[in-house]
């Protein structure tokens, strides 16, 4: 994606939600649909990557906190 550098998790989710709404619209143009689906997949992959990162970092913090105790 072109805007990957500036893309944040929140922005990705916002865009993904917009895509879902469009996809759910039965009257949505088909060519746009393909585009949306591709973009949606990419955004999902991005968000999941972000979430995995958060998960790992949070676990590390929890682990660190327990050791300090």
């Amino acid at each position: 994606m072109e805007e990957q550098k500036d893309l944040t998790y929140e922005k990705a989710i916002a865009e993904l939600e917009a895509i879902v709404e469009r996809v759910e619209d039965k009257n949505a143009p088909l060519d746009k649909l393909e585009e949306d689906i591709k973009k949606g997949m990419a955004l999902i992959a991005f968000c999941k990557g972000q979430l995995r990162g958060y998960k790992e970092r949070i676990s590390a913090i929890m682990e660190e906190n327990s050791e300090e105790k």
Partner: protein
Amino acid sequence: MPKVCQKYITLSAYLGQVKAVMEEADGFPGWVVCELANVSWSRGHCYLELVETDAAGAVTAKARGTIWSYRANALSQAFERSCGAPLRKGIKVMLYVQSQMSELYGFSLNVLDMDPSYTLGDLEAKKQATLKRLEEEDLLERNKELEVPTLPFRIAIVSAEGAAGFGDFMKHLSDSGVDFVTELFSALMQGEGAPESIAAAFGQIEERSGEFDAVAFIRGGGSNLDLACFDDYLIARSIAMCSLPVISGIGHERDNHVCDEVASVRVKTPTGAADFIIGKFADAYASLQDVSARLFEGVEEALASFENALEKLSGRFSSSLRNYTEVRGETLSNLKFRLERAAQGNIDERIHWLDRVLTLLQGADPSRILDRGYGIVTICGQKVTDISSVSDGVRLTIMMKDGKVSLTAKDVVIEKKTEQ
């Protein structure tokens, strides 16, 4: 001295002759004055030893006297009533006597009467007159109103240097261990000139009264004559007028003089005066010890009380702290657990949502339908989902797995599904 005479008589005969002469003169009765050198009693009779002394104190005459029992009690009691003291040695008396001679017992005087007023005499009469005068001049109690300070360090001494009484006094003070400041104001302490000398000493002290705490007026024991001056008015007045309390320690225990009556404190001897002064320090020390002990006790009690309170407080603090940390620890533990779970949950939820979106998108992906061999019909890019939108002349596009084909509908035949 005559030559040895052939004529001689026996002693008893000789004394008999003397006795006869005395009896003829009725024993030469008369009033005599003398001093009692000794007084003794036996079987109701009073036996006296009579002396006469010169100014130097040497005996110049001596005789035995007897008050027979039938008049001894009456005379002695009358004497005591007048003089305030019984017949005793050392006092001067005026006796009405009658000489008697006995071959066996020798010469003696039979005491028929006595005049107590003579005994009171010069000394006592003076003493009584002095006391009366002091009373009239309101001086009897004056020095007694002055109190010896609690710690009388600085003592002015009126005494005779080299006198035994002075030496004893100073030794006693020195042995006490207290650092007294003393100064002797030397004076004649007996005989002629003593009153003036003593008054002068008190005068010197009065000029420097601010330098002292008390006056010790001391002198050791002596005969009545020696101590007679201490009944003198001049000395008594000097003591009475003194602005410092006077501690009088004159003579022996039996002596009681006018100066003793007017002084602030009367003790029996010079050593007694030293003991009195030292005793003030002992009293003050004892009092200080008592206060110190009570203070110490009070401080100990207070400290114990504080320690107790501190211990209790410390206990409560530890307990509270333990509770606090335990509760907080528990809360914190819970919070940590919840945080962890929420964080994980939050992420998992989001992932689930993404998965659902993925499923949705995958479901909506047209290529899936095409891959299964189906085609998608569109009119102007819009999917055809209603057969009624197809009619002759409509431009259709059919999307298939390997591409798309565009055509114009012709000879359209519509077969609508019937609802069952």
